[in-house]
């Protein structure tokens, strides 16, 4: 059995699966249940100044579902904790005492003035928490008041607030980033400059789920009016993975530890985040959709995966895929793939043909000889785009196979093992000679 224990910034937990700061970590009752179910740690629901905020008394959540009502994406307009500051502190102190082996991080959100940080940070730390997570990501409600994503969208504010927190905290400080920006590198570098010990990402994405088809209002609403929420769940994972990988491969931030967040639902999602540079993962939506038991498969799945890979610990997986991420301009333009259809596996649905014919390169030919349907790749036209693979309903029926030698019949060019990329391509006006 591979070792799942995690040591993130010196914060130890029995596994790398933490619950993200969100409704599941709102109070001791939930957190105790989470720890009983086996979660490695929690980031407590974001604390703010008293008087505490209030929430709407109507829908806070809505989901995008498949036809069999599996949740694909999830949206919320809940704000930070709506309970008094001291109530939270009391519960946190007790929970940390009761669960010393689990990670307990305090998510916090304070206005852009140092006095507030100076006042709150030491009191919170006194509860015995393992670290802080600065919520610079919440994209709804709090951002209207100059906090949350309103801070996370301005690198100077990130740096300033991080410095204040670091000044008054002795435990590690993680900065949670918003994806509602143009380039995540700017906020990540600001974190580094502010002295952050780590970043966590992503927070939720600005979103409106849909309209109500009867009333033609946005959906859901609070008595007829609605506001944008934060989007999360499985659908956002690719966006999160890109941002994690960007930070992990950026020269300045590559050693900044990352806690990966965004749609983690199974152990495979955790593998994605960790291999692309995260040290642990945080989960919210999967727990809100299935309950805390979902962590069981995450743990055994990850452990079994590590065993199969011959890895002894999660640490060995961290960043394994980062070297394979690069800029487009460095991709090898001499590499040639062609689609290959396994006729034994093919069920003759013809999806590959029609998508290639209608929307791509007319490289999959169709013949129907008296009901005997055959789909074949025309190497003269195939550009290796992977569209057919992307739509084929059968696993491994169509694969992309690299040409090792010979001539690409589409371009007439000899296959070479010498790589060549855009930086030296003759069509590039900026090419380096």
């Amino acid at each position, binding site marked *: 059995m591979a070792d799942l224990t995690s040591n993130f910034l010196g914060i130890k937990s029995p596994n790398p699966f933490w619950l993200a700061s969100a409704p599941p970590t709102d109070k001791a009752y939930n957190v105790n249940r989470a720890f009983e179910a086996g979660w490695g740690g929690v980031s407590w629901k974001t604390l703010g100044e008293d008087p505490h905020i209030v929430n709407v008394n109507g829908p806070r959540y809505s989901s995008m579902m498949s036809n*069999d009502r599996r949740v694909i994406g999830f949206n919320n307009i809940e704000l930070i904790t709506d309970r008094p500051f001291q109530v939270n502190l009391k519960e946190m102190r007790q929970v940390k005492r009761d669960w010393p082996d689990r990670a307990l991080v305090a998510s916090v959100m304070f206005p852009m003035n140092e006095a507030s940080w100076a006042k709150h940070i030491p009191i919170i730390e006194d509860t015995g928490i393992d670290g802080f997570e600065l919520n610079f990501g919440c994209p709804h409600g709090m951002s209207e008041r100059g906090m949350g994503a309103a801070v996370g969208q301005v690198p100077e504010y990130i740096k300033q607030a991080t410095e204040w927190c670091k000044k008054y905290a002795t435990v590690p400080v993680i900065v949670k980033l918003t994806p509602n920006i143009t380039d995540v590198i700017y906020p990540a570098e600001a974190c580094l400059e502010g002295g952050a010990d780590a970043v966590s990402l992503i927070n939720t994405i600005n979103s409106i789920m849909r309209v109500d088809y009867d009333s033609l209002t946005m959906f859901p609403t609070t008595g007829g009016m609605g506001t944008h929420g934060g989007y999360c769940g499985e659908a956002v994972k690719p966006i999160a993975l890109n941002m994690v990988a960007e930070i992990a491969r950026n020269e300045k931030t590559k050693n900044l530890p990352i806690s990966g967040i965004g749609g983690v639902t199974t152990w495979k999602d955790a593998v994605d985040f960790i291999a692309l540079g995260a040290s642990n993962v945080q989960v919210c939506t999967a727990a809100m959709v299935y309950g805390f038991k979902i962590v069981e498969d995450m743990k055994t799945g990850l452990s079994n995966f590590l065993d199969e890979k011959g890895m002894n610990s999660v640490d060995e997986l961290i960043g394994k895929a980062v070297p394979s991420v690069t800029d487009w301009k460095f991709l090898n333009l001499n590499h040639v793939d062609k689609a290959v259809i396994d006729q034994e596996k093919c*069920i003759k*649905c013809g999806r590959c043909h*029609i998508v290639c014919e209608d929307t791509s390169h007319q490289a999959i030919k169709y013949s129907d000889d008296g*009901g005997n349907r055959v789909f074949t790749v025309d190497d003269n036209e195939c550009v290796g785009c992977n569209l057919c693979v992307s739509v084929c309903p059968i696993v491994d029926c169509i694969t992309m196979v690299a040409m090792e030698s010979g001539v690409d019949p589409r371009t007439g060019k000899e296959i070479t093992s010498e790589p060549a990329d855009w930086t030296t391509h003759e069509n590039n006006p900026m090419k380096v000679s």
Partner: protein
Amino acid sequence: MSNNKIKSEGVNIKSHRLSKKEIEDNFSDLHAPLTPIEALIEADRCYFCYDAPCTKACPSDIDVPGFIQSIRSDNLTGAAEKILSENIFGGMCARDCPTEELCQQACVRNDHEDKPVEIGLLQRYATDSVLENGVKLFSRKKDTGKSIAVVGAGPAGISCAHRLSVLGHNITVYDSKDKLGGLNEYGIAAYKSTNDFAQQELDYILDIGGINIQTGMELGKQITLEGLQKQFDAVFLGCGLGTVNQLNLENENISGVIDAVEYIANLRQTSNKDELMVGKNIVVIGGGMTAIDIAVQSKLLGAEQVTIAYRRDKNAMAASEYEQTLAKKHDVQIQYNLSPKQLISDESNVSAIVFDVMSSQNDGSINATGESLTLRADVVFKAIGQKLVTEGLTDNSLELEKGRIVVDENRKTSLTKVWAGGDCILDGDNLTVSAVQDGKLAAISINETLTQGA
């Protein structure tokens, strides 16, 4: 018509074998309709194939992936429109089509999981929605001033009439029976068309208008083909097969030997199925859908022993594998290679039937082996096919072959103004869906002919 050939004093033939409740349960829907969530999940299984094999396998050319996609998106009206614009009897066909031999056999999911998309149930889901809500999908074009006679109010005739009405023509439909619908009303197994569905569907179809209905009018009696040709701009014959084949055995008229078609018609029309006379030991002669239908329904009515005796081997049986399995599930015995030889009677009711045991040859011929087999029977159902009533047709130089009407690919007969479709034409496959297609193709051809140069 009544079961006057079954004598109630016969020892083993009686009514009330099962309670009213048991019979009601037995004759409930064969396949329960899909719930909305079931329909969405099933629709999600459709791969939206290119040049879809299911559509090619559909005798009425329904765009199957197209209508399933519309179910997926909650566009049930769009789904029903796709179905009904090709097949106005899409509701009944969803219930009685042998989908396991047509669209669902062609489904590519059979290739890797042996579990096709439930196309029939999805089609029912979509069509039920517009029928139940009375959603009007079709309107009539400007009146062409042309009038067309349709003989027979079965699926072929009504399909033809509906399409012609949409195209702006005026139609008069003649039918010999009191109720419309043909075999949809009188022939389809009761558990495939529950809650008087055939009439509901007809009401929906005929709501288009422009279709004048004349019941109790039989070709060769109240109306003649010659007269119709004179009176109308075109004639469509969708008269079906009016009579059944006989065993040609001695004693064939004795009590207990019954035409299956007649019994089923009675079964469909009665309001109290528990009042029907049911045999204890029943032998069904035949190998088609009618044989299966009468055998299964006899079981559901309370018969103890039901045996289908077919004169050829299993492979030659016209009833699909699915239907044969359905019969076996209902505890019906199917015996192959039995050719009826002699009816034995006891106190004027049939008591047994003797068969020659046959052997099937590779060339499809069958020979008597010399052995014989006797099955006890208090009822023998004849389900050995139907034939065209040719009176009223032959005098008009209408070309017939093998006792059926010859038509071209547009369902046009040898007569200039006459088209035909459904079971009465040569090479018809006795399927509702094919009859509907015949009516549609004939209507298109009639319209083209009548509006040429207009």
